[in-house]
């Protein structure tokens, strides 16, 4: 009983404002340190019995700006992917552990399409071949392309030539295909797995989603192979050096497309009845049902919106990073969860903001995690998520519902 009292006190302490103020103070110290580093001011070492602590130091503004830009790029992708997870979490009431594999599925299916189009030589070439095939005149270029290798993303990136400069149409069509295929996948899985379990508790659904995650991930591995590969071609890809930050066309495309998608979603949810119905369902499913909201239709729309954005996020992720493998989405899953939790489950804007916070945190933390410590960028994001869960389970933005 005594031990328990100690536990109670400890938890009480951590939960009280004292705990929160320690976190704030820690943040403040880091901020001051960052400012000092950027200004090139260095104090120290402050001797402790074990090691010296340096305050400040030296970090190039350009390098820091690079961290920020990288953070925004990855943050936007995470934000996009986390919208779907946040929506299904609040409306279907379970943490979907297969969500990362939806990202993977979107990435592979979209890039397969992009690869085929780009590999044949772009839309024009396809049209030309089609015309030639029908009329019997000219060359029939489909024949020299190794379609099988293209579809399976096994052609070398330079040979396929998939990039925003050489084959923008292939990229755009691939993006649409990624969204479309992920939607189809999510609806099939909903029909087979989740719909028969509508009344099940969150944990049963979570376990089912782990099963789905395994099946989808290794199905991708079975079809596309288990190796990680590079798919984007960097040939002639425009890029600019903005004050030490290298920004390439793919990253810009990513941010622009993501912004358009997010704005579109905003309009969709604000201007239509669907948005209202989704909010009502997130609040209370049985009540929504009683008030005549067609719950099954809303659930379907949720999957469509969520999976569409998730597939697009998978595609864009590969666009900016260049490579993909069957574990790509799975490795991103915890960061997506972190974003959702940060933003407050069910809040779309929260998820977007959470994605940015997580993306930035995972890159900006590199200011302190240099050299051998760089691998702790991900744990930093996880730790942030755990802190939010402990101190503000409704999210740092105050648990504002999708509005």
């Amino acid at each position, binding site marked *: *009983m005594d*031990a*328990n009292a100690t*536990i*109670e006190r*400890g*938890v009480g302490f*951590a939960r009280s404002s004292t705990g929160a103020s320690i976190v704030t103070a820690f943040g403040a110290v880091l901020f001051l340190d960052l400012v000092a580093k950027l200004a090139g001011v260095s104090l120290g070492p402050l001797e402790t019995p074990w090691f010296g602590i340096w305050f400040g130091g030296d970090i190039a503004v350009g390098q820091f700006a690079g961290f920020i830009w990288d953070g925004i790029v990855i943050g936007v992708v995470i934000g996009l992917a986390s919208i779907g997870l946040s929506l299904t979490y609040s409306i279907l009431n*379970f*943490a979907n552990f297969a969500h990362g594999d939806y990202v993977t599925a979107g990435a592979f299916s979209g890039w397969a399409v992009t690869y085929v189009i780009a590999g044949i030589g772009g839309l024009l070439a396809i049209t030309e071949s089609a015309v030639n095939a029908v009329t019997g005149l000219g060359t029939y270029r489909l024949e020299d392309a190794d379609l*099988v290798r293209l*579809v*399976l993303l*096994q052609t070398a990136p330079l040979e396929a030539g998939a990039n925003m400069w050489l084959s923008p149409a292939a990229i755009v069509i691939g993006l649409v295909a990624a969204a479309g295929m992920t939607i189809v996948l999510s609806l099939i899985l909903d029909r087979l*797995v989740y719909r*028969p*379990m509508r009344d*099940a508790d*969150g*944990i*049963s659904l*979570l*376990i*089912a989603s*782990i*099963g*789905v*995650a*395994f*099946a*989808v*991930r*290794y*199905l991708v*591995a*079975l*079809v596309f*192979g*288990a190796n990680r590969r590079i798919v984007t071609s960097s040939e002639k890809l425009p890029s600019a050096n903005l004050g030490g930050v290298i920004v390439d066309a793919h990253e810009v495309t990513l941010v622009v497309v993501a912004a358009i998608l997010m704005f579109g979603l905003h309009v969709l949810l604000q201007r239509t009845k669907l948005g209202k119905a989704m909010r009502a369902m997130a609040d209370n499913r049985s009540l929504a049902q009683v008030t005549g909201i067609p719950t099954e239709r809303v659930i379907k729309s949720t999957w469509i919106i969520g999976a569409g954005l998730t597939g697009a996020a998978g595609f864009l992720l590969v666009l900016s990073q260049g490579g993909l493998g069957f574990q790509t989405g799975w490795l991103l899953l*915890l960061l997506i*969860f*972190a974003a959702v*939790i940060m933003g407050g489950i069910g809040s779309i804007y929260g998820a977007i903001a959470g994605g940015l916070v997580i993306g930035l945190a995972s890159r900006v933390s590199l200011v302190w995690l240099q*050299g*051998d*410590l760089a*691998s*702790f960028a*991900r*744990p930093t994001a*996880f*730790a942030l*998520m*755990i802190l939010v*869960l*402990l101190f503000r*389970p409704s999210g740092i933005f105050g648990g504002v519902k999708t509005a």
Partner: protein
Amino acid sequence: MSQTTTDDVLAPLRRVFANDAAKVAVMYIAIWVVFYAFGNHLGYGNSGMLSLVRRVTFLAAVYGIVVLALNIQWGYAGLFNIGVAGFMAVGAYTVAMLSSPPAGSPPGLGLPLPIGVLGGILAATLVGLVAALPALRLKADYLAIVTVAISEIIRITYNSPAFSDVTGGARGFGNLPTSPVETLLLQDPTSPASEATSLGETVFSFAAEYGISQFAVVNTLYTVGVLLVLLVVYLLLERAGKSPYGRVLKAIREDETAAQSLGKDTQNFKVRAFALGCGLMGLAGIVWFAMGPRASVTPQTFRPNITFYIFIALIIGGAGSNTGSVLGGALFASLLFEAPPMIRSIIQETFQVSANPGNLIEALIPIASGNLAPLGGFLLNNIDSLRFIGMGILLVVLIQRKPDGLLGARKETAAGVPLTADTRPDTGRADADAAAVDGGETDE
């Protein structure tokens, strides 16, 4: 309970199968028989056969231990911990750091193995406690996310080049302690080919008569040791489960508010169950990875996948039942893990499958012309992926159709004494007590 005369003939048989020990024994024997048949079919010799059966037994046993540990957390207390891999990692790494020879790289402290093992268990318990104190107040699905995040943090920490002097970094801890069997039988335990001790001499020469190598003897004896550990953990958890303690855990799983309103300090019970489970996961990590035939402590080993295997095994066996956990672990390890490669070899041998298409499309195209061999060959070559797809589907089907598991019963009663109808004060209670199923009655 009424007993009709027609039942009497089958009654002894039924009683045997109602007995948990019998269930487990039958399961293990069945697995041995199946794998013996596999080996036989593939023409394995004595020592190949021994190593095959030994391997599947080892895996079944270690799965049994870790599934039991998860069962106390999830099956009994309803704590959804999906950070199992992390706690196993802490156990395995700690014992390696404490008990490995100081000369190797990375260097260990060279402490005696029992101290190392104890340290590993304690470290896993402690990490569990630190995680549990705040996290156990969270909703079940938040707890799941937090635990998996913690296990990833643990893995990434061991993986980090920053601490590679101590942990071995990404290459893993290459300098592992020797197992007690090696210490007992070999003069130089670090080398499998070393001279035998006098005890080793007797054992090895006995085994040699059956054509069994020194190496195989060491591994087999270690596996027997793991089975003993499984037995001890099982008995321990049987007692913990069949007691007022287990009863409170079950009540928490069912309805925490109800348990609190009956005066149970549920947080306290949850923390203790979590810590106990984590400590046992540490133990499982030790016997599985830190020594013995599968000794290999690398960060990759402790990816979240292994946690999910353990969950699948527990769900197969039936969460909430210790016997089910042991059975589920054995079934998972044998049928889902060890059998598929065997089956592949057997099929390849029997049907002379040699086709080896590079990808699924090339395998599918010949089907149009009625040639199934390429597809067969492709699927056989990718049996690993197929196995995981199968596991995923199995998990979905189980949770949809048989959430209580294939084998066990989530509903085992939790009490230190039998709770059957004939335990009423005015009926023949003595009989029932004498036939008590739990080990706890024996020490009276």
